[in-house]
């Protein structure tokens, strides 16, 4: 499973293990699975799609002013604002 964290300056919104997250990167959407190569990317305002298990319906969270980091631990998404 992929460890996924979504944080805003005000609080830690999510910290959970999921199957895949699709991130709206500035240079195009990208999906992050377990053991993804280390990556840092800016994010355009848009929707994160979180897949809890393989093939499940994604849950979407709208984020603004974001930044994503994939490291050895998992995926961390920093967002200035989160809605929904």
């Amino acid at each position: 499973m992929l460890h996924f964290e979504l944080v805003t300056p005000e609080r830690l919104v999510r910290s959970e293990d999921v199957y895949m997250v699709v991130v709206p990167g500035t240079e195009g959407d990208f999906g992050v699975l377990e053991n993804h190569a280390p990556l840092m990317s800016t994010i355009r305002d848009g929707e994160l799609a979180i897949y809890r298990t393989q093939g499940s319906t994604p849950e979407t969270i709208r984020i603004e002013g974001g930044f994503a980091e994939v490291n050895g631990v998992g995926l961390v998404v920093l967002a200035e604002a989160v809605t929904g």
Partner: protein
Amino acid sequence: MASLKALKLRIGSVKSTQKITKAMKMVAAAKLRRAQEAAEAGRPYAQTLERVVASLAGKVQIGEGSSPLLAGTGKQDVHLFVVATSDRGLAGAFNTNIARLARRRADELIAQGKTVKFYTIGRKGRAALARIYRDRMAHGIEPGDLGKLTFADARGYADDLIRRYLNGEFDVAHLFFSTFKSVLAQEPTEQQIIPVQVKVSATPSADSGMAAVEYEPDEESILAELLPRNIAIQLFRAMRENAASEQGSKMTAMDNATRNAGDLINRLTIEYNRTRQAAITTELVEIISGAEAL
């Protein structure tokens, strides 16, 4: 000696003061808990951002094209002191301590021949500093209730600072606020926010294992986007720390005030009883001596 009536009135007034300070202490305690939770909730973001910025800044070469937020203006002449206090008093030495630290640092820099300007966030700090540095006040913001500040507010202050920086209004910005250590201890703190100070660790720790990090778009552009955000988050963190410190300081101050009022009431009550007894004794003596005379 004061009359019985005057003493009674005095006791009554001290009692109602005590009720007020007690209530304020309770309110501060409740607000403190919330402010503390808020300060803790913001930590993961600040820590992650700080780590990312540090690792990026270590990789990027500082040169002609780099962001002035990282490289500086090449001068150290004009210092801007961003002094964050609160709009309200009655919080012990909270505002005074921050202003005092800013004043001490300002005098040091002025003695070195630097120019110092003040950018105050909070009415109390402005009042304390404007008395001494009347012609050095650059700008003042009154944020209202510190506990209600959002990240968007901090972002607004940061954008204003960055705009002034890019206009060449100052070379270095220092942020003054009060770090919340515990309910009893709040420490006035100074931090340089512009240009960004990068803590480059001697041994790259967590990142060293992952040699090839991919960057989208590239290090420079990511850094250019993150640096202003980093300043906003530093400001936001300072506000949160201030909010907790203010309530902690207020709670302690009001606790002391309540206790002092209690002591005062005890003293006044003793005095009241003594005066009352003295009056009774005098009256008795008068009656007895009157009866003996018959």
